[in-house]
């Protein structure tokens, strides 16, 4: 046992034991622990294997920049891979397992990579896995995937819920350390709406681990008091466990709140995570500073932590990483850690300062090595000693932990996410975020003000300026009196010369100094190139710890300043965000709702098989007992419609009411065919073009009154056509007096088609439906028996005598049921969209399978509809251009299969008989195909070059996807009743 829990001290609740497990072994910690602090308390410093070399790795930090201690927390469907143990709040029953090791952490076979490391140097992805190409699928990819074991997600569906929320505030403060608290208190007292977000589960930031007294008391006492005050301000919202991960346009911030990620029992009434979008007038980034690791030989051995992490673990959590700690520093911070250790009664093996001229003195009894450096470490899965070098004199110093301090970097990621470039400060030897855009400022250590007094003052000062800019009086904030504070100055030491083993820069991606050297030598010295070439900074921690050292090393090797090297680009997210939080409530049916027709119940009662069709859930066919497959059902439905009658749900069509004195004129410009003189009580087929002359959508236009029309759209384009109409009315012709209303969901609509349709319908409708009283294309309001008002249209998609009856949606099922009863003696059947499709193909009617955006009205055989005499309509001008009127355009034709056993499918190519199957010989394509029970053969609609001149020609239907070649005869697309006798009956 070397790491352990101190007898006293820390902010954990020692009266409250918390049980948890790691890799199957049971442990206890305390309330207030992180998983990392509890592991240290149990002497479990080895927590992971590294990505490339599978080297044993331990906890390095005490915060969100942790590169090593990635674990999977939870079991079954509640598994969160790649969770940082250093921020994971400990809870009773927590189960964590390590990652990237096989068979176990202690005995990992992949560690052989370490011995082969000279073959795995920078750029090895590019160099090693180049050829042969066939090796990628079979060898390289499985190899890389197996080795890249950074956590695996669970495959079962996430049982928990997530949500998204908006928040609005005058001031968002990110971080609750001294600067954040000073800023929040200043703004809160001045009456601003303040939102304080903190990624930790306890508010207070660095004050939770600080040993300096504030107003004569422990610093966390001051923090608690400040938080109590903030909590009592009605204008303040505190958001602990909330990571602000992104800064977006208009000062909108993205944040994720872990609502229930710290317990086994999940309240299903609450989300486990909440994604916040925070609209802030102003924001203060008080995210503190990050301590840099030192890059020395063997610096990745478990037991080597940053000095601030050692202090934090001791001061906040009451745990220490070792009984004898060596401290290696390049500045004042290492002395503070040595002091903290001595105060806790822990032996400091040596305090090694890289600066020969350091002014600080070591705590009493601690051996100070000025001008020394660590060049190697000893130990296997735990550091046992450091090898120091001082002027060529090497010494082995035994220790069981190392605290390293390489200076400080302000945490400025968020401030640089919108294009603002970090600025190098020679004085601070660090990058700062200056003038990154209105609405956000950094404060305290995040702005390079490291002393505690400066943090408080800077936070208050920047909040005061914001209060003033909002035109409000500033209420004062007096910083507390501060005990002994340090100035954490340092002398940059990017890498320690004389390393005797690998000196790691990026722990998570196993990038060491030699990799960077190779990148520079091979011409990839630019910071963005070096990143890709070495993969430094590309791991899940995005180089939070290592990037700055990499920049410093690149600068040294290239002989320039870090200012000239610059940083890689900062982008959201600051730390990884779960897919669950990003999806929010948009999962399953909440993401893709099942849209049911108002006739759904009727269809279900009649035994429909349903299918997802676009946004809708539609009745596809209605199988009867004894029917062995869908084709039997569809064939029967088609035959029955042609011989008797059928009832089909067509409620999904888009329906738009158009009103106004200029409604007729407006529609006349919207459709390519004339609408102006459409009589009241009549319907007409309507074809809409795009401005480029291609067909956009089709439907019917019915004039219900002089200034009142109803237009229908295809199901798929109901939304698009409404938007198109609104654009035409609002932007193209705002002078026209016209208004719209989408009523697609207000009406249940059913088609009654077949020779007996009139007789059946007449049993339900009061009005006279005789051919004279209700002729083809009649469209008007009728009264049903039982006095319900309905709309009846005599239009036909099937080519039969047919009507479409629309009733208010809520009456749909009752009316459909009544029709089925009335139709029983006439042999009425229900039919679905499959039969509807066969019926319309037999009749040569087009749908979006034909009108695919490349088709003109003439291509579709509808050229005669064009109202060329109209002064203007959308698409008129460009429909006359040369390319759209060329003689060899593909035209709509019918295709009748010549071989009974060979069907045709949409997408097949049409070739001349005898032509070699090749797209070079392409003559057209099949757009829709089916078996026609009426004709007893496979038929299709398609487009063929100059097709209308080629009726009777035998043609090859080439379906390369299915490997089928079939012969077909070109014919008129109207296969049944070309004289429209049935239609007009």
């Amino acid at each position: 046992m070397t790491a352990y829990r101190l007898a006293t001290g820390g902010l954990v609740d020692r009266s409250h034991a918390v049980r948890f497990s790691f890799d199957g072994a049971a442990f206890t910690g305390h309330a207030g622990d992180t998983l990392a602090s509890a592991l240290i308390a149990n002497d479990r410093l080895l927590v992971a294997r590294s990505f490339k070399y599978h080297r044993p790795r331990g906890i390095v930090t005490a915060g969100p920049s942790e590169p090593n201690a990635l674990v999977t927390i939870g079991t079954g469907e509640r598994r969160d891979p790649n969770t940082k143990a250093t921020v994971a709040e400990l809870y009773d029953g927590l189960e964590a397992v390590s990652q990237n090791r096989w068979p176990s952490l202690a005995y990992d076979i992949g560690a052989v990579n370490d011995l082969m490391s000279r073959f795995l140097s920078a750029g090895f992805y590019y160099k090693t896995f180049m050829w042969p190409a066939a090796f990628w699928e079979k060898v390289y990819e499985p190899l890389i995937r197996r080795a890249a074991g950074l956590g695996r997600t669970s495959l079962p569906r996430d049982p928990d819920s997530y949500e998204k929320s908006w928040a609005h505030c005058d001031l968002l403060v990110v971080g609750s350390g001294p600067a954040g608290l000073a800023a929040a208190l200043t703004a809160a007292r001045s009456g601003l709406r303040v939102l304080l977000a903190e990624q930790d589960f306890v508010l207070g930031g660095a004050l939770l681990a600080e040993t300096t007294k504030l107003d004569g008391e422990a610093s966390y006492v001051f923090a608690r008091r400040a938080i109590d005050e903030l909590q009592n301000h009605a204008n303040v919202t505190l958001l602990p466990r909330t990571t602000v991960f992104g800064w977006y346009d208009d000062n909108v911030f993205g944040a994720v709140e872990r609502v229930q990620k710290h317990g086994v029992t999940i309240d299903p009434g609450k989300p486990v995570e909440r994604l916040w979008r925070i609209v802030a007038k102003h924001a203060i980034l008080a995210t503190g500073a990050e301590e840099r690791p030192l890059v020395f030989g063997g610096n990745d051995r478990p037991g080597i932590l940053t000095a601030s992490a050692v202090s934090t673990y001791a001061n906040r959590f009451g745990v220490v990483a070792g009984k004898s700690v060596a401290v290696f520093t390049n500045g004042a911070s290492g002395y503070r850690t040595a002091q903290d250790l001595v105060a806790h009664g822990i032996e400091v093996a040596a305090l090694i300062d890289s600066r020969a001229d350091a002014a600080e003195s070591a705590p009493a009894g601690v051996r100070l090595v000025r001008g020394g450096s660590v060049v190697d470490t000893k130990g296997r899965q735990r550091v046992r000693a450091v090898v120091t070098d001082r002027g060529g004199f090497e010494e082995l110093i035994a220790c069981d932990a190392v605290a390293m301090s390489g200076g400080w970097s302000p945490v400025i990621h968020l401030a640089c996410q919108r294009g603002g470039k970090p600025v190098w400060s020679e004085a601070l030897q660090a990058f700062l975020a200056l003038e990154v855009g209105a609405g956000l400022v950094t404060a305290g250590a995040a702005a390079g003000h490291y002393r505690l007094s400066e943090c408080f003052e800077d936070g208050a000062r920047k909040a005061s300026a914001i209060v003033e800019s909002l035109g409000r009086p500033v209420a004062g904030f007096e910083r507390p009196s501060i005990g002994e504070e340090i100035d954490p100055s340092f002398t940059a030491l990017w890498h320690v010369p004389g390393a005797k083993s690998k000196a790691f820069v990026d722990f998570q991606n196993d990038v060491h100094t030699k990799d960077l050297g190779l990148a520079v030598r091979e011409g990839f010295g630019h910071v963005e190139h070096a990143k890709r070439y070495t993969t430094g900074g590309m791991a899940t921690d995005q180089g939070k710890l290592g990037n700055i050292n990499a920049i410093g090393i690149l600068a040294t090797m290239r002989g320039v300043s870090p200012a000239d090297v610059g940083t890689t680009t900062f982008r959201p997210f600051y730390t990884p965000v779960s897919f669950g939080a990003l999806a929010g409530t948009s999962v399953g049916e909440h993401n893709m709702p099942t849209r049911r027709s108002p006739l759904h119940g009727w269809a279900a009662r009649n035994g429909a098989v349903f299918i997802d069709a676009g946004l809708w859930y539609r009745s596809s066919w209605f199988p009867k007992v004894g029917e062995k497959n869908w084709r039997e059902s569809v064939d029967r439905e088609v035959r029955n419609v042609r011989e008797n009658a059928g009832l089909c749900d067509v409620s999904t069509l888009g329906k738009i009411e158009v009103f106004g004195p200029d409604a007729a004129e407006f529609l006349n410009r919207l459709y390519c065919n004339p609408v102006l003189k459409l009589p009241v009580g009549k319907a007409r087929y309507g074809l809409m073009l795009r401005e480029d002359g291609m067909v956009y959508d089709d439907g019917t236009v019915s004039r219900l009154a002089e200034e009142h029309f109803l237009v229908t759209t295809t199901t798929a384009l109901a939304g698009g056509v409404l938007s198109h109409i609104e654009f035409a009315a609002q932007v193209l012709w705002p002078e026209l007096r016209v208004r719209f209303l989408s009523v697609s969901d207000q009406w249940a609509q059913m088609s009654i088609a077949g020779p007996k349709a009139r007789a059946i319908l007449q049993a339900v409708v009061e009005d006279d439906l005789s051919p004279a009283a209700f002729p083809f294309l009649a469209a008007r309001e009728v009264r049903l028996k039982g006095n319900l008002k309905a709309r009846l249209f005599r239009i036909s998609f099937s080519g039969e005598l047919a009507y479409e009856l629309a009733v208010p949606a809520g009456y749909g099922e009752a009316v459909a049921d009544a029709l089925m009863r009335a139709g029983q003696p006439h042999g009425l059947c229900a039919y679905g969209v499959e039969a509807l499709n066969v019926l319309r193909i037999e009749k040569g009617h087009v749908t979006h399978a034909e009108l695919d955006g490349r088709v003109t009205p003439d291509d579709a055989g509808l050229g005669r509809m064009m109202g060329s005499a109209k002064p203007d309509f959308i698409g008129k001008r460009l429909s006359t251009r040369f390319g759209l009127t060329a003689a060899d355009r593909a035209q709509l034709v019918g295709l009748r299969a010549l071989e009974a056993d060979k069907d045709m499918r949409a997408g097949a190519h049409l070739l001349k008989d005898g032509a070699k199957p090749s797209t070079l010989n392409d003559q057209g394509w099949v757009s829709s195909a089916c078996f026609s029970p009426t004709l007893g053969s496979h038929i299709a609609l398609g487009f063929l070059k100059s097709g209308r001149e080629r009726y009777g020609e035998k043609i090859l239907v080439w379906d390369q996807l299915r490997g089928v070649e079939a012969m077909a005869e070109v014919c008129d697309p109207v296969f049944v009743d070309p004289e429209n006798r049935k239609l007009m009956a």
Partner: protein
Amino acid sequence: MASLISCPHCGTRAKEEFFIRGDATPVRPAPMAGDDMWNDYVHVRANPRGRIREYWQHVAGCRRWLVVERDNFTHEVFSVSDAAAGRGGER
């Protein structure tokens, strides 16, 4: 791109409520204008960097078509107005 758009009818709303059609500068030519004018109107777009005008429809709000003037480099939004404003419409 902006996170928020101030609709002149509905107030400041999230950009997800809007549908963007594209360049708002081309004006629909007279019906019998020349081929070049119609070709330009339908097919030719400049795609400049900087200040642009675009048609946005507030589809999840008032459903009005708006003209958003913004900078596609800095993402600054200069103005949002109803597309029919000053064009003889009732708005």
